[in-house]
Protein backbone atom coordinates (compact mmCIF):
# COMPACT_ATOMS: atom_id res chain seq x y z
CA UNK A 1 0.00 0.00 0.00
CA UNK A 2 1.56 3.23 -1.12
CA UNK A 3 -0.97 5.49 0.55
CA UNK A 4 -1.72 7.22 -2.76
CA UNK A 5 -5.41 7.82 -3.33
CA UNK A 6 -6.18 6.88 -6.93
CA UNK A 7 -9.95 6.99 -6.52
CA UNK A 8 -12.39 9.47 -7.95
CA UNK A 9 -16.08 10.09 -8.27
CA UNK A 10 -18.22 11.15 -11.23
CA UNK A 11 -21.76 11.84 -10.05
CA UNK A 12 -22.64 8.77 -8.00
CA UNK A 13 -20.12 6.66 -9.93
CA UNK A 14 -17.20 5.73 -7.70
CA UNK A 15 -14.03 4.51 -9.38
CA UNK A 16 -11.08 2.95 -7.63
CA UNK A 17 -8.75 4.51 -10.19
CA UNK A 18 -9.02 6.61 -13.34
CA UNK A 19 -8.32 3.85 -15.88
CA UNK A 20 -11.34 2.68 -17.88
CA UNK A 21 -11.55 0.37 -20.87
CA UNK A 22 -13.08 2.15 -23.88
CA UNK A 23 -16.21 1.11 -25.70
CA UNK A 24 -15.70 -1.12 -28.70
CA UNK A 25 -12.19 -2.09 -27.70
CA UNK A 26 -12.94 -4.80 -25.13
CA UNK A 27 -16.19 -6.31 -26.40
CA UNK A 28 -18.15 -7.37 -23.32
CA UNK A 29 -15.09 -8.14 -21.24
CA UNK A 30 -14.73 -11.87 -21.80
CA UNK A 31 -11.55 -11.91 -23.82
CA UNK A 32 -9.71 -9.06 -22.11
CA UNK A 33 -10.30 -10.77 -18.75
CA UNK A 34 -7.89 -13.50 -19.84
CA UNK A 35 -5.15 -10.87 -19.72
CA UNK A 36 -5.87 -7.94 -17.45
CA UNK A 37 -7.26 -8.43 -13.93
CA UNK A 38 -10.59 -6.63 -14.19
CA UNK A 39 -10.69 -6.29 -10.40
CA UNK A 40 -7.86 -3.79 -10.70
CA UNK A 41 -9.29 -1.60 -13.47
CA UNK A 42 -11.35 1.55 -12.82
CA UNK A 43 -14.31 0.66 -15.03
CA UNK A 44 -15.28 -1.14 -18.20
CA UNK A 45 -17.41 0.39 -20.93
CA UNK A 46 -19.32 -2.07 -23.11
CA UNK A 47 -19.36 -2.13 -26.87
CA UNK A 48 -22.13 0.24 -28.02
CA UNK A 49 -25.47 -1.47 -27.55
CA UNK A 50 -28.55 -0.87 -29.65
CA UNK A 51 -32.11 -1.99 -29.04
CA UNK A 52 -31.85 -4.82 -31.56
CA UNK A 53 -28.76 -6.77 -32.57
CA UNK A 54 -26.75 -5.16 -35.37
CA UNK A 55 -24.76 -7.12 -37.87
CA UNK A 56 -22.29 -4.32 -38.56
CA UNK A 57 -20.54 -3.35 -41.79
CA UNK A 58 -19.18 -5.71 -44.42
CA UNK A 59 -15.40 -6.19 -44.50
CA UNK A 60 -12.91 -4.66 -44.86
CA UNK A 61 -13.57 -3.00 -41.51
CA UNK A 62 -10.11 -1.94 -40.42
CA UNK A 63 -6.93 -0.63 -41.89
CA UNK A 64 -3.76 0.53 -40.24
CA UNK A 65 -2.58 4.10 -40.81
CA UNK A 66 0.57 5.87 -39.58
CA UNK A 67 0.51 5.53 -35.76
CA UNK A 68 -3.18 4.73 -35.87
CA UNK A 69 -5.96 2.73 -37.42
CA UNK A 70 -9.25 3.36 -39.17
CA UNK A 71 -12.24 1.28 -38.19
CA UNK A 72 -15.69 0.99 -39.69
CA UNK A 73 -17.19 -1.76 -37.56
CA UNK A 74 -20.67 -0.29 -37.90
CA UNK A 75 -21.72 -0.92 -34.29
CA UNK A 76 -21.97 -4.68 -34.58
CA UNK A 77 -23.50 -5.73 -31.26
CA UNK A 78 -25.79 -8.29 -29.64
CA UNK A 79 -28.58 -5.86 -28.70
CA UNK A 80 -29.77 -5.03 -25.17
CA UNK A 81 -31.84 -8.16 -24.46
CA UNK A 82 -29.11 -10.61 -25.34
CA UNK A 83 -26.59 -8.43 -23.53
CA UNK A 84 -28.59 -8.71 -20.30
CA UNK A 85 -29.12 -12.42 -20.70
CA UNK A 86 -25.76 -13.61 -21.97
CA UNK A 87 -23.09 -11.01 -21.28
CA UNK A 88 -23.88 -9.52 -17.87
CA UNK A 89 -23.46 -12.76 -15.88
CA UNK A 90 -19.81 -12.96 -16.87
CA UNK A 91 -19.11 -9.37 -15.90
CA UNK A 92 -20.88 -9.80 -12.56
CA UNK A 93 -18.11 -12.12 -11.39
CA UNK A 94 -15.81 -9.14 -11.21
CA UNK A 95 -15.66 -6.21 -8.89
CA UNK A 96 -15.56 -3.62 -11.67
CA UNK A 97 -18.09 -0.87 -12.34
CA UNK A 98 -19.89 -1.59 -15.58
CA UNK A 99 -20.75 1.32 -17.83
CA UNK A 100 -23.16 0.57 -20.65
CA UNK A 101 -22.55 2.41 -23.87
CA UNK A 102 -25.66 2.98 -25.96
CA UNK A 103 -25.84 3.87 -29.63
CA UNK A 104 -29.16 4.39 -31.36
CA UNK A 105 -30.75 5.56 -34.58
CA UNK A 106 -33.52 7.61 -32.96
CA UNK A 107 -33.97 9.49 -29.72
CA UNK A 108 -36.72 7.05 -28.76
CA UNK A 109 -34.30 4.17 -29.17
CA UNK A 110 -31.79 5.80 -26.75
CA UNK A 111 -34.59 6.21 -24.25
CA UNK A 112 -35.88 2.68 -24.70
CA UNK A 113 -32.42 1.13 -24.28
CA UNK A 114 -31.84 3.15 -21.12
CA UNK A 115 -35.23 2.13 -19.70
CA UNK A 116 -34.45 -1.56 -20.21
CA UNK A 117 -30.86 -1.46 -19.01
CA UNK A 118 -31.30 0.76 -15.96
CA UNK A 119 -33.15 -1.99 -14.09
CA UNK A 120 -29.96 -4.08 -14.01
CA UNK A 121 -28.06 -3.39 -10.78
CA UNK A 122 -24.71 -4.38 -12.22
CA UNK A 123 -24.86 -1.40 -14.58
CA UNK A 124 -23.45 1.58 -12.72
CA UNK A 125 -23.62 4.28 -15.38
CA UNK A 126 -24.42 4.99 -19.01
CA UNK A 127 -22.24 6.36 -21.72
CA UNK A 128 -24.26 7.67 -24.62
CA UNK A 129 -22.56 7.43 -27.97
CA UNK A 130 -23.74 10.36 -30.06
CA UNK A 131 -20.61 10.28 -32.12
CA UNK A 132 -20.17 7.07 -34.06
CA UNK A 133 -18.89 7.98 -37.53
CA UNK A 134 -19.62 4.58 -39.04
CA UNK A 135 -23.35 4.15 -39.34
CA UNK A 136 -25.75 5.75 -41.76
CA UNK A 137 -28.46 6.87 -39.41
CA UNK A 138 -27.86 8.08 -35.87
CA UNK A 139 -24.28 8.47 -34.77
CA UNK A 140 -22.74 11.63 -36.08
CA UNK A 141 -26.04 13.01 -37.22
CA UNK A 142 -26.76 13.46 -33.50
CA UNK A 143 -23.24 14.31 -32.48
CA UNK A 144 -23.16 17.21 -34.94
CA UNK A 145 -26.21 18.95 -33.55
CA UNK A 146 -26.09 20.69 -30.18
CA UNK A 147 -29.84 20.66 -29.99
CA UNK A 148 -30.01 16.90 -30.54
CA UNK A 149 -27.35 16.33 -27.90
CA UNK A 150 -29.35 18.47 -25.44
CA UNK A 151 -32.49 16.54 -26.16
CA UNK A 152 -30.85 13.13 -25.87
CA UNK A 153 -29.18 14.11 -22.58
CA UNK A 154 -32.44 15.38 -21.09
CA UNK A 155 -34.49 12.37 -22.16
CA UNK A 156 -31.94 9.77 -21.08
CA UNK A 157 -31.47 11.53 -17.72
CA UNK A 158 -35.23 11.43 -17.21
CA UNK A 159 -35.14 7.65 -17.64
CA UNK A 160 -32.44 6.78 -15.11
CA UNK A 161 -30.98 7.79 -11.75
CA UNK A 162 -27.60 6.47 -12.76
CA UNK A 163 -24.86 8.80 -14.00
CA UNK A 164 -25.11 9.68 -17.68
CA UNK A 165 -21.94 10.38 -19.62
CA UNK A 166 -22.23 11.75 -23.14
CA UNK A 167 -19.48 10.68 -25.53
CA UNK A 168 -18.66 13.59 -27.77
CA UNK A 169 -17.50 13.74 -31.33
CA UNK A 170 -14.30 15.56 -32.22
CA UNK A 171 -15.72 16.14 -35.70
CA UNK A 172 -17.32 19.46 -34.71
CA UNK A 173 -16.07 23.04 -34.73
CA UNK A 174 -16.58 23.76 -31.03
CA UNK A 175 -16.69 20.75 -28.73
CA UNK A 176 -17.14 22.99 -25.67
CA UNK A 177 -20.58 24.05 -26.92
CA UNK A 178 -21.61 20.40 -26.83
CA UNK A 179 -20.19 19.88 -23.36
CA UNK A 180 -22.15 22.91 -22.22
CA UNK A 181 -25.34 21.50 -23.71
CA UNK A 182 -24.73 18.26 -21.76
CA UNK A 183 -24.15 20.14 -18.53
CA UNK A 184 -27.22 22.34 -18.99
CA UNK A 185 -29.42 19.26 -19.32
CA UNK A 186 -28.01 17.62 -16.22
CA UNK A 187 -25.52 15.24 -17.83
CA UNK A 188 -22.97 13.99 -15.30
CA UNK A 189 -19.88 13.96 -17.48
CA UNK A 190 -18.61 13.96 -21.05
CA UNK A 191 -16.14 11.63 -22.64
CA UNK A 192 -13.89 13.00 -25.32
CA UNK A 193 -13.07 11.96 -27.89
CA UNK A 194 -14.65 9.41 -30.14
CA UNK A 195 -12.78 8.67 -33.37
CA UNK A 196 -12.00 11.21 -36.09
CA UNK A 197 -13.45 10.61 -39.54
CA UNK A 198 -10.79 9.46 -41.99
CA UNK A 199 -10.27 7.38 -45.09
CA UNK A 200 -7.58 5.55 -47.04
CA UNK A 201 -7.35 4.62 -50.73
CA UNK A 202 -5.38 2.08 -52.69
CA UNK A 203 -3.41 4.08 -55.25
CA UNK A 204 -3.33 1.24 -57.79
CA UNK A 205 -6.96 0.17 -57.77
CA UNK A 206 -8.20 3.67 -56.82
CA UNK A 207 -10.64 1.98 -54.46
CA UNK A 208 -11.19 2.85 -50.82
CA UNK A 209 -9.61 0.30 -48.52
CA UNK A 210 -12.62 0.30 -46.19
CA UNK A 211 -15.86 -1.05 -47.57
CA UNK A 212 -17.66 1.77 -45.74
CA UNK A 213 -15.27 4.23 -47.50
CA UNK A 214 -14.73 6.28 -44.33
CA UNK A 215 -13.88 5.08 -40.87
CA UNK A 216 -12.93 6.34 -37.43
CA UNK A 217 -9.30 7.14 -36.74
CA UNK A 218 -7.93 6.03 -33.37
CA UNK A 219 -4.56 5.36 -31.78
CA UNK A 220 -1.56 7.55 -30.93
CA UNK A 221 -2.05 9.61 -34.08
CA UNK A 222 -5.10 11.30 -32.52
CA UNK A 223 -3.69 12.05 -29.07
CA UNK A 224 -2.77 15.70 -29.69
CA UNK A 225 -6.26 16.37 -31.07
CA UNK A 226 -7.88 14.65 -28.10
CA UNK A 227 -5.76 16.60 -25.61
CA UNK A 228 -6.73 19.88 -27.26
CA UNK A 229 -10.42 18.96 -27.11
CA UNK A 230 -10.20 18.03 -23.43
CA UNK A 231 -8.40 21.29 -22.69
CA UNK A 232 -10.99 23.28 -24.62
CA UNK A 233 -13.82 21.74 -22.61
CA UNK A 234 -11.97 22.17 -19.32
CA UNK A 235 -11.39 25.85 -19.99
CA UNK A 236 -14.98 26.61 -20.89
CA UNK A 237 -17.30 24.22 -19.05
CA UNK A 238 -17.39 22.94 -15.49
CA UNK A 239 -18.14 19.26 -16.07
CA UNK A 240 -16.12 16.10 -15.40
CA UNK A 241 -14.27 14.94 -18.52
CA UNK A 242 -13.20 11.43 -19.40
CA UNK A 243 -10.21 11.74 -21.71
CA UNK A 244 -9.87 9.31 -24.62
CA UNK A 245 -7.61 9.12 -27.61
CA UNK A 246 -4.33 7.46 -28.35
CA UNK A 247 -3.28 6.55 -24.82
CA UNK A 248 -0.32 4.17 -25.03
CA UNK A 249 1.18 4.43 -21.53
CA UNK A 250 0.94 6.03 -18.08
CA UNK A 251 2.57 9.23 -19.26
CA UNK A 252 -0.26 9.79 -21.71
CA UNK A 253 -2.73 9.30 -18.86
CA UNK A 254 -0.98 11.94 -16.74
CA UNK A 255 -0.98 14.32 -19.72
CA UNK A 256 -4.74 13.88 -20.20
CA UNK A 257 -5.34 14.51 -16.51
CA UNK A 258 -3.20 17.64 -16.49
CA UNK A 259 -5.22 19.16 -19.35
CA UNK A 260 -8.47 18.42 -17.54
CA UNK A 261 -9.50 14.77 -17.56
CA UNK A 262 -10.86 13.28 -14.33
CA UNK A 263 -10.49 9.78 -15.74
CA UNK A 264 -9.37 8.26 -19.04
CA UNK A 265 -10.25 5.40 -21.33
CA UNK A 266 -7.89 3.05 -23.08
CA UNK A 267 -8.94 1.94 -26.54
CA UNK A 268 -6.75 0.80 -29.40
CA UNK A 269 -3.94 -0.13 -27.00
CA UNK A 270 -6.04 -3.08 -25.76
CA UNK A 271 -5.67 -4.70 -29.19
CA UNK A 272 -1.91 -4.44 -29.14
CA UNK A 273 -1.19 -5.05 -25.48
CA UNK A 274 -4.16 -6.49 -23.61
CA UNK A 275 -2.26 -6.33 -20.32
CA UNK A 276 -1.61 -2.62 -20.64
CA UNK A 277 -4.51 -1.25 -18.58
CA UNK A 278 -3.54 -3.19 -15.47
CA UNK A 279 0.10 -2.23 -15.86
CA UNK A 280 -0.78 1.44 -16.34
CA UNK A 281 -2.68 1.49 -13.03
CA UNK A 282 0.44 0.27 -11.24
CA UNK A 283 2.68 2.72 -13.08
CA UNK A 284 0.39 5.64 -12.27
CA UNK A 285 0.60 4.80 -8.62
CA UNK A 286 4.38 4.73 -8.85
CA UNK A 287 4.39 8.11 -10.59
CA UNK A 288 2.28 9.56 -7.79
CA UNK A 289 4.55 8.17 -5.09
CA UNK A 290 7.66 9.47 -6.81
CA UNK A 291 6.19 12.90 -7.36
CA UNK A 292 4.62 13.39 -3.96
CA UNK A 293 1.04 13.29 -5.25
CA UNK A 294 -1.28 12.02 -2.51
CA UNK A 295 -4.54 12.23 -4.40
CA UNK A 296 -4.49 11.61 -8.11
CA UNK A 297 -7.56 13.76 -8.65
CA UNK A 298 -5.37 16.77 -7.76
CA UNK A 299 -3.77 16.33 -11.16
CA UNK A 300 -7.02 17.04 -13.01
CA UNK A 301 -6.82 20.41 -14.73
CA UNK A 302 -3.48 21.26 -13.08
CA UNK A 303 -2.11 22.69 -16.29
CA UNK A 304 -0.10 25.87 -16.34
CA UNK A 305 -0.52 28.03 -19.42
Amino acid at each position, binding site marked *: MSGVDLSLQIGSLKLRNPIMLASGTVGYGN*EIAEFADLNKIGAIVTKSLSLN*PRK*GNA*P*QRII*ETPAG*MLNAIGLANVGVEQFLKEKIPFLKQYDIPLICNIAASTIEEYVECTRILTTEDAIKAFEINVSCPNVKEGGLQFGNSCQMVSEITAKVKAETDKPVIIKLSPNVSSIADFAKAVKDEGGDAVSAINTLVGTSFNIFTKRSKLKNVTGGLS*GPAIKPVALAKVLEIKQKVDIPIIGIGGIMNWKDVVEFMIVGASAVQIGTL*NFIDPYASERIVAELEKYCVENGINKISDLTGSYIL
Partner: protein
Amino acid sequence: MPLLNAIVEKSIEIDNKIFLLKVYSPALTANVKPGQFINVRVSETIYPLLRRPFSVCDVEGDYFYLMFNIYGEGTKILSRKEKGEQLDILGPLGNGFNIDGDFDTAVIVAGGLGAAPFPFFTRMIDKEKEVLSFIGGRSSHDVITYEMKNVSVATDDGSRGYHGNVIALLQNKIDELKSKKIKMFSCGPSAMLRALKTFAIENNFECEVSTECAMACGFGICQGCPIESTQHPDKYLLVCKDGPVFNVKDVVI
Protein backbone atom coordinates in the same frame (compact mmCIF):
# COMPACT_ATOMS: atom_id res chain seq x y z
CA MET B 1 -3.89 -17.51 -25.35
CA PRO B 2 -1.25 -15.84 -23.30
CA LEU B 3 1.17 -13.15 -24.34
CA LEU B 4 4.46 -14.92 -24.69
CA ASN B 5 8.03 -13.91 -24.83
CA ALA B 6 9.74 -15.82 -27.55
CA ILE B 7 13.34 -15.63 -28.69
CA VAL B 8 14.44 -15.47 -32.29
CA GLU B 9 16.80 -18.24 -33.29
CA LYS B 10 17.36 -17.27 -36.91
CA SER B 11 15.81 -15.81 -40.03
CA ILE B 12 16.41 -17.89 -43.12
CA GLU B 13 15.67 -16.88 -46.69
CA ILE B 14 14.56 -19.99 -48.55
CA ASP B 15 14.03 -19.61 -52.27
CA ASN B 16 11.79 -17.02 -54.03
CA LYS B 17 12.23 -14.32 -51.35
CA ILE B 18 10.36 -16.47 -48.88
CA PHE B 19 11.56 -16.18 -45.30
CA LEU B 20 11.43 -18.63 -42.45
CA LEU B 21 11.77 -17.28 -38.96
CA LYS B 22 12.83 -19.87 -36.40
CA VAL B 23 11.75 -18.93 -32.90
CA TYR B 24 12.22 -20.49 -29.45
CA SER B 25 9.05 -20.70 -27.39
CA PRO B 26 8.31 -23.87 -25.44
CA ALA B 27 5.12 -22.27 -24.08
CA LEU B 28 3.76 -21.94 -27.60
CA THR B 29 5.00 -25.18 -29.07
CA ALA B 30 3.47 -27.16 -26.18
CA ASN B 31 -0.03 -25.96 -27.09
CA VAL B 32 -0.31 -25.12 -30.75
CA LYS B 33 -2.28 -27.09 -33.35
CA PRO B 34 -1.84 -27.03 -37.14
CA GLY B 35 -3.81 -24.14 -38.66
CA GLN B 36 -3.63 -21.94 -35.57
CA PHE B 37 -1.89 -18.59 -35.78
CA ILE B 38 -0.01 -16.13 -33.61
CA ASN B 39 -0.17 -12.35 -33.55
CA VAL B 40 3.27 -10.77 -33.59
CA ARG B 41 4.25 -7.33 -32.40
CA VAL B 42 7.02 -6.71 -34.87
CA SER B 43 8.15 -3.45 -33.30
CA GLU B 44 8.04 -1.94 -29.81
CA THR B 45 7.41 1.48 -31.34
CA ILE B 46 4.13 2.74 -32.76
CA TYR B 47 5.16 1.98 -36.33
CA PRO B 48 3.79 -0.40 -37.31
CA LEU B 49 1.18 -0.08 -34.59
CA LEU B 50 -0.84 -3.28 -34.83
CA ARG B 51 0.30 -6.85 -34.45
CA ARG B 52 0.67 -8.97 -37.56
CA PRO B 53 -0.97 -12.41 -37.79
CA PHE B 54 0.99 -15.42 -39.06
CA SER B 55 0.20 -19.09 -39.24
CA VAL B 56 2.45 -21.37 -37.30
CA CYS B 57 4.32 -22.94 -40.19
CA ASP B 58 6.11 -25.73 -38.38
CA VAL B 59 7.11 -26.93 -34.94
CA GLU B 60 10.31 -28.75 -34.00
CA GLY B 61 10.70 -29.41 -30.29
CA ASP B 62 10.77 -26.06 -28.50
CA TYR B 63 11.07 -24.12 -31.75
CA PHE B 64 8.44 -22.94 -34.15
CA TYR B 65 8.70 -21.45 -37.61
CA LEU B 66 6.87 -18.66 -39.40
CA MET B 67 6.88 -18.45 -43.18
CA PHE B 68 6.33 -15.14 -44.96
CA ASN B 69 7.43 -12.89 -47.79
CA ILE B 70 8.22 -9.21 -47.53
CA TYR B 71 4.88 -7.59 -48.12
CA GLY B 72 5.04 -4.30 -46.25
CA GLU B 73 6.81 -2.70 -43.31
CA GLY B 74 5.91 -5.35 -40.73
CA THR B 75 7.23 -8.30 -42.67
CA LYS B 76 10.33 -6.30 -43.61
CA ILE B 77 11.12 -5.76 -39.92
CA LEU B 78 10.39 -9.40 -39.16
CA SER B 79 12.76 -10.61 -41.88
CA ARG B 80 15.60 -8.66 -40.23
CA LYS B 81 15.19 -10.09 -36.74
CA GLU B 82 18.42 -11.51 -35.42
CA LYS B 83 19.36 -14.36 -33.13
CA GLY B 84 18.65 -13.60 -29.49
CA GLU B 85 16.07 -10.86 -30.10
CA GLN B 86 12.88 -11.09 -28.07
CA LEU B 87 9.70 -11.54 -30.05
CA ASP B 88 6.43 -10.42 -28.47
CA ILE B 89 3.79 -12.91 -29.59
CA LEU B 90 0.18 -13.62 -28.68
CA GLY B 91 -1.01 -17.13 -29.17
CA PRO B 92 -1.88 -19.75 -30.08
CA LEU B 93 -4.95 -18.07 -31.57
CA GLY B 94 -8.00 -19.34 -33.43
CA ASN B 95 -9.10 -22.85 -34.28
CA GLY B 96 -6.83 -25.12 -36.24
CA PHE B 97 -7.59 -27.86 -38.75
CA ASN B 98 -9.47 -30.94 -37.53
CA ILE B 99 -6.97 -33.53 -38.57
CA ASP B 100 -8.36 -36.48 -36.59
CA GLY B 101 -11.43 -37.21 -38.66
CA ASP B 102 -12.65 -40.34 -40.36
CA PHE B 103 -10.66 -40.14 -43.58
CA ASP B 104 -7.58 -41.87 -44.90
CA THR B 105 -6.17 -39.29 -47.27
CA ALA B 106 -5.59 -35.62 -46.47
CA VAL B 107 -5.68 -33.57 -49.64
CA ILE B 108 -3.87 -30.27 -49.16
CA VAL B 109 -4.71 -27.49 -51.59
CA ALA B 110 -2.47 -24.45 -51.19
CA GLY B 111 -1.92 -21.32 -53.23
CA GLY B 112 1.17 -19.12 -52.82
CA LEU B 113 1.87 -18.35 -49.16
CA GLY B 114 -1.21 -20.39 -48.31
CA ALA B 115 1.39 -23.15 -48.01
CA ALA B 116 2.46 -21.66 -44.66
CA PRO B 117 0.43 -23.85 -42.24
CA PHE B 118 1.04 -27.14 -44.05
CA PRO B 119 4.54 -28.20 -43.03
CA PHE B 120 3.24 -28.44 -39.43
CA PHE B 121 0.04 -30.06 -40.67
CA THR B 122 2.02 -32.67 -42.61
CA ARG B 123 4.18 -33.39 -39.59
CA MET B 124 1.22 -33.83 -37.24
CA ILE B 125 -1.12 -35.88 -39.33
CA ASP B 126 -1.58 -39.48 -38.33
CA LYS B 127 1.15 -41.68 -39.82
CA GLU B 128 -1.52 -44.10 -41.10
CA LYS B 129 -3.02 -41.36 -43.23
CA GLU B 130 -1.81 -40.50 -46.69
CA VAL B 131 -1.12 -36.87 -47.63
CA LEU B 132 -1.47 -35.51 -51.16
CA SER B 133 -0.37 -31.90 -51.67
CA PHE B 134 -1.67 -29.79 -54.54
CA ILE B 135 0.19 -26.52 -54.81
CA GLY B 136 -0.81 -23.68 -57.10
CA GLY B 137 0.77 -20.41 -58.15
CA ARG B 138 0.76 -17.91 -60.97
CA SER B 139 4.19 -19.06 -62.05
CA SER B 140 6.95 -21.29 -60.73
CA HIS B 141 8.23 -18.40 -58.55
CA ASP B 142 5.06 -18.48 -56.48
CA VAL B 143 5.12 -22.20 -55.82
CA ILE B 144 6.12 -23.13 -52.28
CA THR B 145 6.58 -26.81 -51.57
CA TYR B 146 8.71 -26.52 -48.41
CA GLU B 147 8.42 -29.67 -46.24
CA MET B 148 5.37 -30.96 -48.09
CA LYS B 149 4.75 -34.53 -49.20
CA ASN B 150 3.51 -36.06 -52.49
CA VAL B 151 3.45 -32.72 -54.23
CA SER B 152 1.61 -31.94 -57.48
CA VAL B 153 2.12 -28.44 -58.85
CA ALA B 154 -0.09 -26.29 -61.06
CA THR B 155 0.91 -22.91 -62.47
CA ASP B 156 -1.24 -20.46 -64.41
CA ASP B 157 1.56 -19.82 -66.92
CA GLY B 158 2.65 -23.44 -67.17
CA SER B 159 6.17 -22.67 -65.99
CA ARG B 160 6.03 -25.58 -63.57
CA GLY B 161 3.85 -28.67 -63.41
CA TYR B 162 0.32 -28.65 -64.72
CA HIS B 163 -0.56 -25.68 -66.96
CA GLY B 164 -3.69 -24.23 -65.39
CA ASN B 165 -5.06 -23.54 -61.95
CA VAL B 166 -4.90 -25.95 -59.07
CA ILE B 167 -8.63 -26.66 -59.12
CA ALA B 168 -8.41 -27.77 -62.77
CA LEU B 169 -5.59 -30.06 -61.70
CA LEU B 170 -7.80 -31.55 -58.97
CA GLN B 171 -10.55 -32.03 -61.54
CA ASN B 172 -8.06 -33.95 -63.68
CA LYS B 173 -7.37 -36.29 -60.81
CA ILE B 174 -10.97 -36.71 -59.80
CA ASP B 175 -11.03 -40.49 -60.34
CA GLU B 176 -8.08 -40.98 -58.06
CA LEU B 177 -9.58 -38.68 -55.43
CA LYS B 178 -12.93 -40.45 -55.58
CA SER B 179 -11.28 -43.81 -55.11
CA LYS B 180 -10.07 -42.77 -51.63
CA LYS B 181 -11.70 -41.58 -48.46
CA ILE B 182 -10.42 -38.01 -48.57
CA LYS B 183 -10.74 -34.79 -46.63
CA MET B 184 -9.51 -31.54 -48.13
CA PHE B 185 -7.58 -28.83 -46.27
CA SER B 186 -6.87 -25.54 -47.95
CA CYS B 187 -5.34 -22.11 -47.56
CA GLY B 188 -4.69 -19.51 -50.22
CA PRO B 189 -6.16 -16.62 -52.23
CA SER B 190 -9.95 -16.18 -52.00
CA ALA B 191 -10.45 -16.85 -55.72
CA MET B 192 -8.90 -20.27 -55.20
CA LEU B 193 -10.92 -20.95 -52.05
CA ARG B 194 -14.13 -20.00 -53.86
CA ALA B 195 -13.41 -22.38 -56.73
CA LEU B 196 -12.45 -25.08 -54.26
CA LYS B 197 -15.71 -24.63 -52.39
CA THR B 198 -17.69 -25.32 -55.55
CA PHE B 199 -15.48 -28.30 -56.37
CA ALA B 200 -15.73 -29.80 -52.88
CA ILE B 201 -19.50 -29.39 -52.66
CA GLU B 202 -20.10 -30.78 -56.17
CA ASN B 203 -18.08 -33.86 -55.33
CA ASN B 204 -19.28 -34.16 -51.77
CA PHE B 205 -15.77 -33.92 -50.34
CA GLU B 206 -15.27 -32.77 -46.77
CA CYS B 207 -13.27 -29.58 -46.86
CA GLU B 208 -11.78 -27.16 -44.34
CA VAL B 209 -10.38 -23.81 -45.41
CA SER B 210 -8.17 -21.33 -43.60
CA THR B 211 -9.38 -17.78 -44.28
CA GLU B 212 -7.76 -14.37 -43.96
CA CYS B 213 -8.93 -10.93 -43.03
CA ALA B 214 -7.37 -7.71 -41.82
CA MET B 215 -7.13 -7.92 -38.03
CA ALA B 216 -6.57 -5.43 -35.25
CA CYS B 217 -6.55 -7.70 -32.17
CA GLY B 218 -6.59 -11.34 -33.30
CA PHE B 219 -8.54 -12.54 -30.23
CA GLY B 220 -12.11 -11.34 -30.60
CA ILE B 221 -12.34 -7.88 -29.05
CA CYS B 222 -12.27 -5.49 -32.01
CA GLN B 223 -14.88 -7.05 -34.35
CA GLY B 224 -12.57 -6.12 -37.18
CA CYS B 225 -12.48 -9.48 -38.97
CA PRO B 226 -16.00 -10.52 -40.04
CA ILE B 227 -16.80 -13.34 -42.43
CA GLU B 228 -20.28 -14.08 -43.72
CA SER B 229 -21.90 -17.19 -42.27
CA THR B 230 -24.07 -19.45 -44.43
CA GLN B 231 -26.11 -20.69 -41.46
CA HIS B 232 -26.73 -17.37 -39.71
CA PRO B 233 -26.93 -14.64 -42.34
CA ASP B 234 -28.02 -12.16 -39.65
CA LYS B 235 -24.62 -12.13 -38.02
CA TYR B 236 -21.00 -12.41 -39.03
CA LEU B 237 -18.53 -14.94 -37.75
CA LEU B 238 -15.10 -13.66 -36.70
CA VAL B 239 -12.10 -14.96 -38.63
CA CYS B 240 -9.81 -14.68 -35.61
CA LYS B 241 -12.00 -16.44 -33.05
CA ASP B 242 -14.47 -18.62 -34.95
CA GLY B 243 -11.81 -19.39 -37.56
CA PRO B 244 -9.44 -18.89 -39.24
CA VAL B 245 -10.22 -22.50 -40.22
CA PHE B 246 -13.84 -23.16 -41.18
CA ASN B 247 -15.77 -25.99 -42.73
CA VAL B 248 -16.10 -24.63 -46.25
CA LYS B 249 -19.88 -25.05 -46.09
CA ASP B 250 -20.18 -22.70 -43.12
CA VAL B 251 -18.81 -19.53 -44.69
CA VAL B 252 -19.38 -17.36 -47.72
CA ILE B 253 -16.04 -16.92 -49.42
